[in-house]
């Protein structure tokens, strides 16, 4: 058994609207092991960003966590006061947001922002925090840290800003970093830089990462294990190679087939028919059944739970690829 750092059990998030309550995240359960990269992949509206935000309770009304247990290193996070959570965010759980533009305060120098964060999380005095901030600036691959320290965010390019955001998330030396679409706003060549940096820092510091993305290519290169989300539910989770190469859930398979790959000469892609149901509109039983080629009567009747099939867990009554295996 691996050493679980973060345990999430039955995490449920609801959205309260004028016309009632809808479930946005439906009983999510998964672990993040110490020092691993867990990829969370899904299409927009699947609930992947919500999962990240719910773990450290960054949800804003009308979204609300209405159920589930979350523990980090054995300590319960749910039910903690806002004050206690605030000290955990940043110090024990770092957060990298998608948009490097809005994650930095435009009116403060980047050095000040880094040093202040370090001082808060480590209790260092000003001089020591400044020294540490300079180290982090060069550690994330920005040259001339002394000069860069005194500059404002607008002096940096998009890729450089995202490096600073990563430094901000990691400088408190957290056990876990939640990276929400960290490269989506960036160009391909910059994306490769940022992912390389994340990988290197992950190896150096041993921090665990939850990498939230819609890009299966990023998952393939980065994640040790991968969870697939669909309509607010976790439909498959397992080792990345297993999930991508031998998917058990038809949705995972459909996603792989619909994704174009520049190495292949396919002239035609295989889309999944229809589109993901909107919030609160998932069909009964299996949420994917209306788009699934393998759906049968039982898929509408009962909701499939996550069950281990070989090496990965899938929430499907008719998992793929088992005819040969068993």
């Amino acid at each position, binding site marked *: 058994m691996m050493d679980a750092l973060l345990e999430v059990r039955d995490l449920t998030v609801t959205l309260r609207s004028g016309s009632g309550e809808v479930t946005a995240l439906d009983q999510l359960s998964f672990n993040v092991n110490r020092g691993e990269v867990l990829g969370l992949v899904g299409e*927009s509206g699947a609930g992947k960003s919500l999962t990240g935000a719910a773990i450290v309770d960054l949800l804003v009304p009308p979204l609300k966590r209405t159920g589930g247990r979350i523990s980090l290193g054995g300590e319960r996070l749910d039910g903690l006061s806002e004050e206690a959570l605030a000290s955990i965010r940043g110090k024990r759980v770092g957060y990298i947001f998608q948009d490097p533009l809005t994650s930095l305060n435009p009116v403060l120098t980047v050095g000040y922002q880094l040093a202040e964060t370090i001082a808060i999380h480590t209790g260092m005095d000003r001089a020591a925090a400044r020294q540490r901030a300079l180290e982090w600036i060069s550690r994330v691959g920005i040259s001339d840290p002394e000069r860069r320290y005194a500059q404002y965010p607008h002096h940096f390019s998009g890729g450089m800003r995202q490096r600073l955001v990563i430094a901000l998330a990691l400088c408190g030396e957290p056990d876990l970093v939640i990276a929400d679409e960290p490269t989506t706003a960036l160009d391909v060549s910059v994306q490769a830089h940022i992912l390389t940096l994340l990988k290197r820092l992950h190896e150096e510091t041993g921090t665990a990462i939850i990498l939230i993305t819609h890009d299966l290519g990023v998952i393939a290169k980065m994640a040790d294990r991968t969870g697939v989300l669909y309509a607010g539910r976790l439909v498959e989770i397992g080792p990345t190679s297993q999930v991508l190469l031998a998917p058990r859930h038809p949705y995972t398979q459909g996603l792989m087939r619909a994704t174009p790959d520049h190495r292949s000469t396919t002239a035609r892609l295989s889309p999944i028919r229809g589109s993901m149901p*909107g919030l609160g509109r998932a069909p009964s039983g299996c949420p994917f059944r209306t788009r699934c080629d393998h759906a049968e009567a039982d898929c509408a009747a009962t909701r499939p739970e996550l069950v281990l099939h070989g090496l990965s867990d899938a929430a499907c009554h008719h998992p793929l690829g088992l005819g040969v295996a068993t």
Partner: protein
Amino acid sequence: MASPTTGAFRQPRFPLLAQLLRSPGSAAAAVVAIGLIAAAFLVPPLMAQDPFAPGGAAIWEAFTPPVWMDGGSSTYLLGTDNQGRDMVASMLFGLRTSLVVGFLAVGIGLVLGVTLGLVAGFVGGVVDAVIMRLADIQLAYPALLLAMIISGAAGTVTGPQRSVSAAITIVVVSIGVSFWVQYARTVRSSVLVERDQDYVAAARITGRSSVAIMFTHILPNVMGPVLVIATINLAIAIITEATLSFLGIGIPLTQPSLGTIIRNGNSYLQSGEWWIVVWPCLLLIVFVIAINVLGDWMRDALNPRLKRRG
């Protein structure tokens, strides 16, 4: 943040109405505002006597206090004024005049401002610069002062003895003209945003003319904020009318408006007949508050940032 997929919630048939009912304060304001407007336009034509017509009032019943006071009469619930006119009837007649002035003034400001704003935003260049500098110049004058200047200037043309309809026209125009800048600025900034939207590019590629794009595509998309301003301007117009009339440079005393009624009643405040001035003041306050609450609610309800992706 993962935004909920578009169309996640079924759109009600009358989305604005449903939204209004969910906000009790705004719903109450709507009821008050619409109720008063309806009363002002529907009740006076039904009344047997126009209290402001010659012989329309019973002078011997002047200064009757409200019904609950000594000497009050159940015929005059809120009492009568110095001419024996029923306060309730007077106020309804007065509100009607004030509303007519308000609606016409807002209409003038709206047509003028929206057209100039559209042209400034869409054409740009020198035309834009000229229109917006004019707007800047006008903004340097408070609306009331501007209305007083226009009213005074018009007075030198018509002479001191102007007809009632001429007086009303002058009030309407002077208030209306003081409004156009707001509309023009709002429309212009919306046009600058909409002009660069892809649907406009699509229409251009299809070969639609600039005028067609301006009026069929852009205009409907910039009307939301305009309606909000128009609502709030209605309240401002009514206050401005009351102020001008109170100062004696608006509507003549022979024509009832909230302003003239308050001006008339003001003379009797010291001598104890407080009701002649207090009721119309209260009506003015209640109506203006109701309109402003409604306007605030509309601003939120029509906010394109809350709506567009929702």
